């Protein structure tokens, strides 16, 4: 590949017009654990696989889905440590907005600022892009919203989306199953079924994580007991 000669420096375009480091970052995302999100008529759900490297790992201590504000949550596919850094920066930006305007930050504004941070790391010296794509789920005055943010810094609003290892199967499944007037509980069932599609092994409340936000505008990560209830309904 002639492009590989241009993959050393982030700030150098290859002759084909690509920034090869970003392509590599997207590959890192594509080999990460599957995560997905669905926007319902009255809320948003995000979910991810939580495959741990060994049965000795204390799975209750691993939290892949995180709050950014009380009404915005996020999940990732790709490199966990990079996700931690982005979550920290986003939380700070959200709090700065709140401190300035005494008003909670709208979802689009937070997504834009997070995407700007990710873009800065594609145009600065001595840094590499983030190896994560984020799914940001929130509910504000404009209603339920779901955004995906990529390592390049581009962001998209989705009705339903998936990322990571099983992305093409998951997206095909979602395309078939998604309806405009879906309610939040239906969306959670669909999310579980989509995860199940490409799941290696037995799906249980210990190896997936689900976060949801409804019209109450409070983002919550479901407890294992609640996930078990939904899993039972899906069977």
């Amino acid at each position, binding site marked *: 590949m002639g492009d590989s000669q241009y993959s050393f420096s982030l700030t150098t375009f290859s002759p084909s017009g690509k920034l090869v480091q970003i392509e590599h970052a997207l590959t890192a995302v594509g080999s990460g654990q599957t995560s997905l999100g669905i926007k319902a008529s009255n809320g948003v759900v995000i979910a991810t696989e939580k495959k741990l490297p060994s049965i000795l790992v204390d799975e209750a201590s691993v939290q892949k889905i995180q709050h950014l504000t009380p009404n915005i949550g996020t999940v990732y596919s790709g490199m966990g440590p990079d996700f931690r850094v982005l979550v920290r920066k986003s939380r700070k930006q959200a709090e700065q907005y709140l*401190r*300035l*305007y*005494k*008003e909670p930050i*709208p979802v*689009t*504004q937070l997504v*834009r600022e997070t995407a700007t941070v990710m873009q800065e790391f594609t145009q600065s010296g001595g840094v590499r892009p983030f190896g994560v794509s984020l799914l940001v789920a929130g509910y504000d005055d404009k209603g339920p919203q779901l955004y995906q943010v990529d390592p390049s810094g581009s962001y998209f609003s989705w009705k339903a989306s998936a990322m990571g290892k099983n992305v093409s199967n998951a997206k095909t499944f979602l395309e078939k199953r998604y309806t405009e007037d879906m309610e939040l509980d239906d969306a959670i069932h669909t999310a579980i079924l989509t995860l199940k599609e490409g799941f290696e092994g037995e799906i249980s409340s210990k190896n997936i994580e689900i976060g949801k936000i409804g019209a109450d505008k409070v983002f919550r990560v479901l407890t294992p007991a609640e996930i078990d209830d939904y899993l039972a309904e899906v069977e």
Partner: protein
Amino acid sequence: MSIFEYNGSAVVAMVGKNCFAIASDRRLGVQLQTIATDFQRISKIHDHLFIGLSGLATDVQTLYQRLVFRHKLYQLREERDMKPETFASLVSAILYEKRFGPYLCQPVIAGLGDDNKPFICTMDSIGAKELAKDFVVSGTASESLYGACEAMFKPDMEAEELFETISQALLSSVDRDCLSGWGGHVYVVTPDEIKEKILKGRMD
């Protein structure tokens, strides 16, 4: 003599029934000398949000320009107008940034918020917000304004009556203050329209 009294000013805002009024005097002086009789102290941020600034005239103008700048960027980014409460928080933050070298102004903010509920507030020159349900005053004539408003104000006035009340309160207060006066500038804002009127009082 205090620097806040260098130019002379009087600003007042009042709440009515689903409307508000904001008024100011028109004199710009340099201590005892009158320089202009058409000085603009009240400015529109958007159709349902006004800010009146009293105090040192140069800071009045600069602060207004900074606030319009911030609001225009907000409108472009967020594709909506700022709510009055949000704008008041922004003004407070901007004033506090200069805590140890402040803008020598006292803002009076008046707007219609969600559901066309009137909102007024004032703050000191370093951003201490003071919300009120009835009226707020600021400037060299503030003490007279407090007295006049307290006596003349009634809750839930309609736009016509609110205009009369705020105009009388302003004119009688600036007549007791040598540094403010030369007429009045009144805005009465309802959900559908903005009425702007110039008052002729004692032209001194």
